[in-house]
Every structure is written in structure tokens, then in C-alpha cells.
């Protein structure tokens, strides 16, 4: 089993260390949290829940990084397509990362509510 290391902040930092790939990595891990998927299924699932279409090169760049970090692991190939699944380390890092994002979201929405209460949703 992939090892757990450090506390929540260390887990969050692990994903933040992906730099510009933190976004795709978060989307991929969130998709795999629902169960193993291969590349094309990942693309379609991410597109359905996030409205973002991951281009093939970007998807596999992030997959390779996540696999090299032990956050996901590949399963047996099925008809030339290889499914990936979340590891414990990946689930821990994703949970910490999303929790950190949720705190930012909560603070941002609260401050918007306090100071920009007249703002109408859906307007530019």
C-alpha cells in the first residue's frame, strides 16, 4: 500500500507541488475517486463534471506525474486501454487539497456576502 506521509498540510503541498499541473491533477484524482477509469473515460468524466476537456498530452503528462508520485496506480491493460485507480496516498493528498480549497472558497464567499451583497450572480 502506498505510504501516508506527514500531516494534512504536507499532503496538500504534495499536490500543489504539481505547479501548473495541479489543476489537471485535481480533476483526475477527483474523477478517479469515483472508481478506476482509462484515459478516454477520464476525459469524458472530467468534461461532464467540470466542463473542462483535458487534451491528450496534458492528460497523460498529469497521469505520469501522479503515477510517479504514487498517487494513482495502473491496472491491467484492457483491450489496449489501461485503467488507473486512486491510491491511499492520492486520496489523502486530494482530500487535503480540496479541504484547503474549500476553506478559501468559504472565506471568499463570506467576504463577498459581507461587502458585495448587491452583486447579482451571473452578471459580468
Amino acid at each position, binding site marked *: *500500500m*502506498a*505510504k501516508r506521509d506527514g500531516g494534512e498540510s504536507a499532503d496538500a503541498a504534495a499536490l500543489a507541488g504539481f*505547479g501548473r499541473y495541479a489543476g489537471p491533477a485535481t480533476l483526475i484524482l477527483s474523477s478517479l475517486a469515483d*472508481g*478506476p*477509469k*482509462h*484515459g*478516454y*473515460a*477520464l*476525459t*469524458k*468524466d472530467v468534461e*461532464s463534471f467540470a466542463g473542462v476537456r483535458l*487534451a*491528450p*498530452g*496534458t*492528460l*497523460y*503528462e498529469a*497521469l*505520469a*506525474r501522479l*503515477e*510517479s*508520485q*504514487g*498517487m*494513482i*496506480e*495502473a*491496472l*491491467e*491493460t484492457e483491450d*489496449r*486501454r*489501461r*485503467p488507473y485507480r486512486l*491510491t491511499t*496516498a492520492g486520496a489523502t493528498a486530494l482530500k487535503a487539497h480540496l479541504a484547503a480549497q474549500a476553506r478559501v472558497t468559504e472565506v471568499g464567499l463570506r467576504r463577498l456576502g459581507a461587502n458585495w451583497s448587491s452583486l447579482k450572480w451571473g452578471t459580468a
Partner: protein
Amino acid sequence: MSPADEPAETAPAADDADDADDAAVGPAGGTAGQAERLLRWYPRPWRDRYGAEFAELLVSDIAERPRSLRRSLDVARGGVLARLADAGLAGFPLPASTDGAGAGRAGALAEQARQRQVSASLGAFSCALGAFLVFAAALWSQMLVSWQWFAKIDAGLPPTSVVGRLDRAPADGAFYAVFSNDAMLALLFLAVLAALPVLAAVAGRIARGGPSRLIGPAVVLAAAVAFLFIGGRHFENNWVGTGGHHALIPSGLAAFIWSLTLFVTSWWAHPALFATLPVAERAWMALSPFALAIAVASSTVLVRRVRLSPRVAAFEAWVGLLGCVTMAAFVVCYGVWTIVKVRLEPGLPLGLTVGVTHATIIALLALALAVAVQAARMAARGARRARA
């Protein structure tokens, strides 16, 4: 499995049902051919690991969107990054294949990947250092042999006195010249210091019946070094430039390196002048760069394949970082010395101008230095993680 499986199943490469789509994509092989062409952006180890599944994804993507500039650019960018990663110069190691590995081995495979990344980074560093040494040593040895030559024939000075006179010279240029000389000697020392543990590891593994893939590059390296040593010693003693003077640097090091790097010269741009050289020397100038390139390449392959222990790898990375500082010192000092057109002191007719050859070589040195810095940083970071 999600419903998203379905489109992939409608787009197998050899499926007759896709003939219409293939024709729409283009004449050179349809979707499978297009996917195959895009896949060529990636290095072979990456293709061995991800090629089949990535091609399958591309086929599905192409079937959905036959023409997409964004996809082509994205794949090209990913391929370049994968090549940099394969060379140990980008941010993550390539994971090992997990076919049949079973669950729970992700951590162990990640650890193996980190070790491979350190090996690749050290290999890239050795390649950059080798290229740097060839050209920097050429400049350095030409500088020293020129001092010695002019000192002897024009000023009537004993060659052994030149370095001492430089140390006392007040001109700024002399300071930079002496400092670049010291930097090169330090770099040669560091290169030997870094090479010894690798050679010991290679010899030890071969002696213990280790992987046969070490034997080939080791034999090639030994042959290239032998060729360079014999040729270098021969021409060191006969080349008019050195005149057989060996007093300036112990054991004739400058003269030997000068003969090793005779091909670094502007004589190539003057065919009539070049043709006046004896045939053997012209042949040496033509062959020695190939031998040097083979030596550097085989060293790189050995460093990548030998699988150093974490402790030795950390030592190599540390020496590499020191080497980068030394390389930077040489580039700066030699560059300044060249630009100010140093004259050693009155009476010595040496003044260099920054010609195309010098400018090109200094640019190559700067490029090699940039690669070396990135490789050493990656190796040091990987070695730290491997030991943690």
C-alpha cells in the same frame, strides 16, 4: 466502467466501420496513422510505457474531432517535456510498467522511478560536463600553450616563469586569465573525483557478473580513451604549437589537452592553410572529435545504467553542483579575459580578439553550463528524496 467507454469502442484502428472517418482525416493512414505520427513526439521509453493506451486515446479523440490544432500542439508540447524528463532535465521520473504488479506496489514503483530519474539526471550532467570540458579545455590549453610559446620565443623567458609572472601582473586581464586557469584545473579535479566512484561501480558490477548492458559502453569508452590517449601523446610531442614544451603544467597536461582538442580551431575556415598540415594531423583533427563524442556518449550511458547507491548518487550530485560553480567561474573569467583583449605584459605579443570561433565556443559553454545546472539540481533533489 463509465458510459464514456462507448466512444472508444467505436474507434478501433482497424475497424471497417471507421473507413469513412479515415478517409475524412487524410490519405496517410487515417486515425491510426495520425495517432502514430503524434506518438512519435514522445521518447521510446515513454512510448514503451504509455504508447498503446495513449494511441488508443488519440484514436478516440481524433474520431471525435478529426482536425484539431490544439491537440497537435498539446501532444507536441507533452512530447518535448517527456523527452526532457527522459533526459533527466524535467520535473518528474517516468514510472515503471505496472503490468502484473498487483495492488499496493505504487510506492515501491515510485521509488524505483525516483532512482531512475537521479541516474538520468547524473547522465545528463556527465554529458554536459563532457561537452563543456572538451571546448573549455581547448580554450584553456591554447591559452597556456600560447603563453608558453610566446614567452619562450619572443621574450626569452623560461616557460616555468610565466605563471609566476602572471600572478604578479597588475593588469585586470591577467587576474581573469589566472583565475580561469585555476577554474579549469579545479574542474578537471572535480571531473576525476566524480568519475572514480562511477568507474569503480561499473568495474565492480561487471566483475560480479552484473548486467551485460554495462559491458558494451564500457568497452567502447575504453577504446575511445585509448585512441585519444595514444593520439594525444603522439601529436603532443610533434605538433609545432607545443614544440614539446611541457614545463608550464605538470606532466605536459596543457600540451596533451591541446593535442586532444586540435580540432577546435578556425583553420577549418581556411582550406588552403589547412591543406598545408601533414596528412596525419589532418586525419587526427578529423577523427579525434568523433572519439571525444563517443567517449562522452558512452560515459553518459554508463552513468545512466550503473544504478549508483543513494549515497554515491548524492555524492555525485554534490560534486555536480560544485562543478557548476566552477564552470560558471571559468565562463565568466575566460569571457572577460577574451573581451578585454588581455596583453599579458609589455613585451609579450599576445592579444586576443573576440572572433567568431571564440564567441561560438563561449556560447556553447554557456549552453552546456545551463544544461549542467538543471541536471545537477534535478540530481541533487532526486538524491535527497531517495535518501529521505
